[in-house]
């Protein structure tokens, strides 16, 4: 699970200005662009793809029942023309848009929606997103291999589908917007079998025209796309295998239009300070938090005072400076743009003296020795060294363990391996813009299992119960109350201090002068990294 795998990122970007919204919906169709990536596109199968590169490609090739307004985290209807939610919040009925066609020409119906949900939850598909569908009735039987169809999903007529949940789930509409619930045509999946990911057939704005393994992909506009006027471009070429630095050089020479991996740290200052390019640099937030975990099962981190002392000892501003200021310091698990964030919370202020005192109170006046695990790619070891200094200042002697990513993740998944982990390069980025997505696997009891992602092994049954209560509030009228409940949960976690939240990273990318469209779609919080459907070419305007 690489950095890219983890970055099914969602970010909150600046709200769209009305004027911008105007000019991009009315922009003329035509033109093309070149987008570059370093790593291979692994698959375009929406049930499987979970990488940085393929996430928004899949969104452009496929449609789901729900989607988000371009450049925002606001849910909108996509294949669903309308939907109703029952009183108890457990039955969702979706009315499908009529006349939507797959790239193979066949009309998309409710049967396809059901087939797609059955497929993604079938263990044989080996979907990394199967767990998102856990609240659908019949999921457990599917996961156990005892059923080959979700009992809670019923086709009422060709354009109506009903989905019953086994428990109220306030995040369910988000789940219907995630890539894993994209609608696929059965006949194409069966024709290609395991290679469907190389021969994707969807109903999206673009269709795959060519794929030269390891070199390039070409997307062509879907002339029959149901959403009139979308997409804007006729063609997108993705060039694969270009290091971010090389990609940027190409863009500067007009040989590329978007560096898909963003602006590399080494070129950051040069590009942002160059008047020729500064105007084309685009900044966006993302739903990301970088944190240090402390394993509450390993002494002395089983003592809350020690964990609080570490929270006071870490100089977050210096960590931000190390990455050229491409982040904002954090004081709680949720990033600022996530609903539920507590703007008034002050967190643990940087205060080495107080930290030292607290450590003495905990019985460690002379500190102790420990280990800090870190993913071995720049800038993470440098950031870890900065933490090492901070810890040394209060007497803690932390040895840095630089390891490959998979090894750090493996150590974190064991109860007695890694006393401290810096999450850099592996940090949690939300799958959808909802506070619940930052809890279960990384701070809840569910994740505190062998092989889990809760590297601090923090498990608070009381908070788990509260989380379940919060997610049962499906009534949109209760959204605020639910948000408040989540806020309480995260602040309670900070009392127990299993993490040191360090910073929230910002995303920086560029576009060539040839391309147009609101900035927000180039750092789209959901269609990560770029919402290709709405980018237009200035050449044809």
């Amino acid at each position, binding site marked *: 699970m690489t950095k890219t795998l983890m970055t099914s990122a969602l970010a909150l970007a600046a709200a769209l200005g009305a004027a911008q919204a105007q000019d991009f919906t009315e922009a003329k169709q035509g033109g093309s662009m070149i987008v570059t990536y370093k790593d291979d596109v692994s698959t375009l199968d929406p049930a499987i793809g979970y990488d940085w590169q393929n996430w928004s490609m899949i969104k452009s090739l496929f449609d789901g029942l729900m989607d988000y307004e371009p450049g925002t985290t606001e849910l909108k209807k996509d294949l669903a023309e309308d939907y109703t939610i029952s009183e108890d919040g457990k039955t969702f009925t979706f009315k499908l848009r009529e006349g939507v066609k797959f790239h193979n020409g066949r009309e998309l119906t409710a049967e396809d929606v059901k087939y797609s949900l059955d497929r993604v939850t079938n263990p044989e598909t080996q979907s990394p997103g199967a767990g998102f569908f856990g609240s659908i009735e019949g999921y457990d039987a599917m*996961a156990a291999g005892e059923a080959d169809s979700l009992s809670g999903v019923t086709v009422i007529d060709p354009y109506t589908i009903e989905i019953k949940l086994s428990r109220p789930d306030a995040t369910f509409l988000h789940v219907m917007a995630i890539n894993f619930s994209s609608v696929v045509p059965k006949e194409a999946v069966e024709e290609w079998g395991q290679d469907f990911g190389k021969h994707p057939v969807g109903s999206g704005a673009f269709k795959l025209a060519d794929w030269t*393994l390891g070199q390039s992909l070409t997307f062509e506009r879907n002339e029959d796309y149901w959403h009139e006027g979308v997409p804007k471009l006729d063609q997108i070429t993705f060039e694969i295998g270009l290091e971010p630095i090389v990609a940027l050089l190409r863009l500067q020479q007009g*040989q590329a239009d978007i560096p898909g991996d963003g602006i590399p740290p080494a070129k950051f200052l040069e590009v942002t300070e160059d008047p020729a390019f500064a105007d084309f640099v685009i900044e966006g937030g993302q739903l990301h938090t970088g944190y240090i975990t402390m394993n509450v099962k390993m002494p002395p981190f089983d003592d809350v005072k020690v964990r609080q002392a570490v929270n006071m000892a870490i100089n977050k501003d210096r960590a931000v400076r190390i990455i050229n200021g491409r982040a904002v310091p954090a004081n709680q698990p949720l990033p600022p743009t996530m609903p539920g964030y507590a703007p008034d919370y002050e967190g643990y202020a940087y205060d080495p003296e107080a930290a030292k005192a607290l450590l003495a109170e905990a019985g460690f006046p002379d500190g102790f020795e420990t280990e800090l695990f870190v993913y071995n790619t720049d800038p993470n070891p440098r950031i870890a060294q900065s933490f090492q200094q901070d810890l040394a200042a209060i007497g803690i002697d932390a040895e840095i363990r630089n390891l490959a990513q998979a090894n750090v993740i493996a150590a974190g998944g064991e109860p007695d391996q890694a006393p401290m982990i810096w999450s850099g390069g592996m940090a949690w980025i939300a799958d959808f813009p909802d506070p619940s997505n930052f809890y279960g696997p990384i701070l809840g009891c569910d994740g505190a299992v062998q092989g889990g992602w809760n590297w601090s092994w923090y498990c608070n049954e009381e908070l788990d119960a509260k989380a379940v209560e919060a997610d049962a509030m499906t009534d949109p009228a209760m959204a605020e109350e639910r948000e408040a409940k989540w806020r309480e949960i995260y602040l309670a976690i900070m009392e127990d201090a299993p993490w040191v939240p360090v910073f929230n990273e910002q995303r920086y990318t560029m576009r060539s002068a040839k391309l147009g469209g609101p900035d927000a779609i180039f750092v789209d919080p959901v269609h990560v990294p770029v919402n290709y459907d709405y980018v237009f070419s200035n050449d044809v305007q």
Partner: protein
Amino acid sequence: MWAYLIRRIGESLLILLGISLVTFVLLYLVPADPARQIAGRSATAETVANIRAQLGLDQPFHIQYIRYLGNLLHGDLGRSYLQRTEVAELIEARMPATLLLMLAAIVVELILGLTIGAVAALKRNSALDQTLMVFSFVTISAPQFVVGILLLYVFAVQLQWFPIGGYGTFAHLVLPAVTIGLLGTGWYSRMMRSSMIDVLAQDYVRTARAKGLGRLRIILRHVAPNAILPIIAMIGIDIGLFMSGIVVVESVFGWPGIGQLAWQAIQRIDIPIIMGVTLVSACFIVLGNLIADLVAPLVDPRIKLK
């Protein structure tokens, strides 16, 4: 000759078997669970266990290894865990680019290496000789990563003579081929120099000179061919050298060969791809060495195949 060939092929197969075992053991010991990688971060323990069983990763080591070898005999390298594509298909798609790059690198190192070596030998102990030998020393010692970036910066970014990375035309090929070829250039120029000096001191050269033959004619007819032959025999061994170079160079230049594939797979611990690329490269190295050994006696009759 035939007995020798058969014995060498047998040995080669044993070496390949050994390499497959060592790689398999190393990858087995890596503390990363492929089933967890596939299952994703929100998967339950049951889902992970299920996937582990589907892939046969719950089996003991020897069963997994024997199963892998069995598939290998059918030409099946398995399916990538993360790309979900046949490894053979991925390697096949990238092989032409790597072969082209290796071939071009051989041309570069032969032309540059032999020329530099010959000039240095003829101007022995002059300032030119010393400069060339320092140059060859630098090309041997410089990390290819640095050389690649440097060439890219000077010739593609600043001078804009070549495209900045990528694949497709002859212009794309030049810089990566030179980067890899430079390493061999250093070795070849040194070998060519000493080989030339050796030949220049031979009696037949003195005889030729005594006969009154022109200097150029002596060099082209008598010296160069005799000096080059032992070097030609080295090309097979170069292939092994290249295999380590292509991982770095292909990544720097965005060259879509198997080196880049390997690099990406290593970063993500995609075991079937790492296994596949390792075996394929091992085949090349073994084959290269075999060819080198077979060619040697043709070049120099004093060498006998035993």
